[in-house]
């Protein structure tokens, strides 16, 4: 445990002594803040216009018009940015030959992987929590439902840890950071969209829907808390870390 924490601390130091963490966090806030602003403004224009139409104004709903699409869009931004966060975790160790230190120190591969993973999860948490000031701002003005907002946040977090775990796996495969980032971005995007196949074929329909990131996130962003979605993300994260472990174990024979 102490070793894991030592590695986490080291990774955080490296994250914040290079521009990586700052750029990723601030871009995330900039883009999500921008989206939120546009959505809220659009919503207020809509509600102004619908003032004369009681039927339409009854249908207007803050959660449905702002929060649900906001979380869905924020998820896409995570998909774009998180591979940048994980790309150096193992690739850079190999390129700089520091893996020779890491793997000869008295620590286990599990501790190394967890240490690195936790550091990226902490940054993800920081990114998500930092959106709270503007996301909760409408609560001072009106009364949206809070549950969908909370499940939306939970969804972002779970989705994020799944992305990060795959990103680490991708980083363990290569010593080229760009390759690691592009590979994890590409595969995650594919998994996000894989449910499209169900439009054209019924073959493996249930399975395709199950492995698609989008379907699981859709529920959470709408306020539906289903254990199967949570289990999906957690098991995806576990598989990513396990594959990383397998890569490190095999590599010991080949270097």
């Amino acid at each position, binding site marked *: 445990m102490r070793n894991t924490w030592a590695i986490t601390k080291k990774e955080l130091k*490296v994250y914040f002594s290079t521009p990586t963490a700052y750029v990723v966090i601030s871009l995330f806030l900039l883009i999500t803040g921008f989206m939120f602003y546009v959505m809220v403004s659009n919503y207020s224009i809509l509600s102004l216009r619908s003032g004369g139409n009681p039927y339409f104004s009854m249908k207007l709903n803050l959660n449905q018009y702002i929060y649900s699409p906001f979380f869905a869009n924020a998820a896409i931004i995570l998909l774009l940015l998180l591979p940048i966060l994980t790309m150096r975790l193992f690739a850079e160790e190999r390129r700089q030959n520091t893996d020779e230190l890491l793997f000869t*120190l008295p620590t286990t591969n599990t501790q190394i992987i967890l240490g690195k993973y936790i550091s990226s999860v902490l940054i993800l948490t920081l990114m998500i929590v930092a959106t709270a000031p503007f996301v909760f701002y409408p609560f001072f003005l009106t009364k949206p439902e809070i549950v969908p907002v909370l499940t939306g946040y939970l969804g972002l977090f779970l989705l994020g840890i799944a992305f990060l775990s795959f990103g680490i796996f991708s980083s363990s495969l290569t010593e080229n950071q760009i390759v690691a980032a592009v590979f994890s971005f590409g595969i995650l995007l594919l998994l996000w969209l894989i449910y499209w196949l169900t439009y054209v074929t019924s073959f493996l329909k249930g399975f395709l829907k199950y492995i698609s990131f989008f379907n699981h996130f859709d529920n959470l962003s709408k306020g539906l808390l289903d254990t199967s979605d949570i289990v999906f993300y957690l098991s995806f994260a576990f598989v990513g870390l396990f594959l990383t472990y397998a890569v490190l174990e095999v590599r010991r024979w080949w270097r």
Partner: protein
Amino acid sequence: MIKTENLTKFYGNIRAVYRLNMEVPEGDILGFLGPNGAGKTTTMRMVTGYTTPSFGKTEIAGINVQKEPLKAKKLVGYLPEIPPLYPELKVSSYLEFVAEVKGIKGKERKKKVEEAISSTGLEKVAGRLIRNISKGYRQRVGIAQAIIGDPKVLILDEPTIGLDPKEIVEIRQLIKSLAGKRTVILSTHILQEVTSICGSIAIINEGSLIEFGEIREIEKKYGSASLEEIYISAISKEVKNEEHMGNN
């Protein structure tokens, strides 16, 4: 203290190290010689547990490195050929990190880091980012990292490569001062270094051990030739090709 038994490493069909048997007694400094590509680095990587041998084993103080890596790694300080440094970290926080993973706690850690800094002469650069210090200093940070926590065994892969003459002398003196309690394997191409520091030598070529023993005895065997002459004649010997690997 350090023992290898039939240590062998294949990369596909390439034989990097073949049936290496060595035993380095406690307190000895072993000069590890051989041409580039002879298998020195691979051997050291197997001794430190970075690489797993194809077969054979390595032992440190009686602990099998492949079977109980954690226990064995605690006893070893390792300086790879390319010093493993994080350019984004400060010298002191880098050493702090290494000390923490080596299991040195609390106040003791700070003390050990300071000790390592002062014995490698890093006081001037301790607060600077590793990316901003000179090659000589980086090499020293690499050594400081290896000696933190007073490991019983030091494995140093070409510690003086690429340094200027003054730095070479300083590092050599440092290694000499570290000797005594510690068992050291030192790989190098500089033969004076070996004669001035080491008690025994191992010469390897094409993955096989050619000469191994105390320097004096090997010199006797070669009729009091200089180390240079011994080295040249040792590596120009035909490497015996024993192709009955299954007999082991």
